[in-house]
């Protein structure tokens, strides 16, 4: 793994720890205010507003905690050149990373996680980047109100992630053709082949298939 990625990973991981401490203090402070209010026998002016506000703050703490957990996990993606990972973990991280881009385009990204464990052996950071960029291409083209479904299976090895576009008013085939014609798609196909990930347009033009072949350490090391 290159030094820059390791540096960013380390700083991000350390910062998420600090963020959790900040959130812990805010949570305890909200809890203390709730304790005080619940012990107060006399009615407090605007009590319902206080309670609603505290509840809203607590909700945001929970949101912040979830974000910092995901960011911490993401930071550790840069720890290894090649690692064994659960495919569900890869997909969940990609959903986290793409959430904002999808929201800005009014696109919903959903996933159907496999029942059993499917293990991929790959470069964790490069694989995340690849899936993120594939999702980005489809998010760009599917149009507002569209959906993207992620499915995975490992029955016919190697493991596969299928990214399916579901537009509301456009022809699905036209979207996939647009993705295929873009220079980004060509570049993406080229560099993912270096980490043994094959990107294909689905035969029935539903979306993109990502075939994750096993990566040996020396292949990644030569990047």
């Amino acid at each position, binding site marked *: 793994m290159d030094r820059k990625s390791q540096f960013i990973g380390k700083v991000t991981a350390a910062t*998420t*720890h600090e963020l*959790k*401490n900040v*959130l*812990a*203090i*805010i*949570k*305890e*402070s909200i*809890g*203390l205010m709730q*304790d005080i209010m619940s*012990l107060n026998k006399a009615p407090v002016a605007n009590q319902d507003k206080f309670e609603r506000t505290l509840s809203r703050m607590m909700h945001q*703490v929970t949101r912040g*905690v979830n974000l910092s*957990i995901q960011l*911490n996990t993401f930071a550790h993606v840069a720890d290894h050149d090649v690692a064994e990972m659960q495919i569900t973990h890869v997909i969940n991280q990609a959903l986290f990373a793409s959430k904002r881009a999808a929201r800005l385009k009014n696109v919903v990204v959903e996933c159907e996680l496999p029942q059993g464990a499917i293990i991929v052996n790959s470069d964790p950071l490069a694989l995340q980047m690849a899936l993120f960029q594939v999702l980005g291409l489809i998010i760009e083209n599917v149009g507002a109100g569209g959906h993207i479904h992620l499915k995975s299976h490992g029955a016919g090895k190697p493991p596969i992630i299928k990214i399916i576009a579901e537009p509301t008013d456009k022809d699905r085939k036209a979207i996939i053709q647009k993705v295929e014609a873009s220079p980004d798609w060509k570049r993406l196909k080229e560099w993912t082949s270096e980490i043994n990930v094959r990107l294909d347009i689905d035969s029935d033009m539903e979306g993109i298939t990502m075939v994750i072949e096993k990566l040996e350490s020396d292949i990644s090391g030569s990047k």
Partner: protein
Amino acid sequence: MDNLKVLLVDDELEFVSTLAERLEMRNFVVSTANNGEKAIESVAAEPPDIVILDIMMPGMSGLAVLKRIREERPNMPVILLTGMGAGCAVADGMDHGAFDCLTKPINIEDLIDKIGKAVAPAGKRV
């Protein structure tokens, strides 16, 4: 658990003071320490019924403090706190004899539940 003596150890001053207030409102007798050395001194000077100990602190780490407590007071229950879930996994793997581990931000009801189990005579040490 009225008047149960709890020692809270964490370098985050505001976390410790707020959590202490919340536990005191629930009739615990709380003392605090902001680093490992002070925690060891406090355990020696006025042994608490239970120690709530942050794993990651500057200077003496929570796990080093736990090791010292185990040497000097093998039966004193200790509950570890960590910023990330992985910290609990590491602590469990190291098998230092903490009663349990909680990830911050904690839920006070969970903490009280674990304190209750840890100080109960049948409290099982892991």
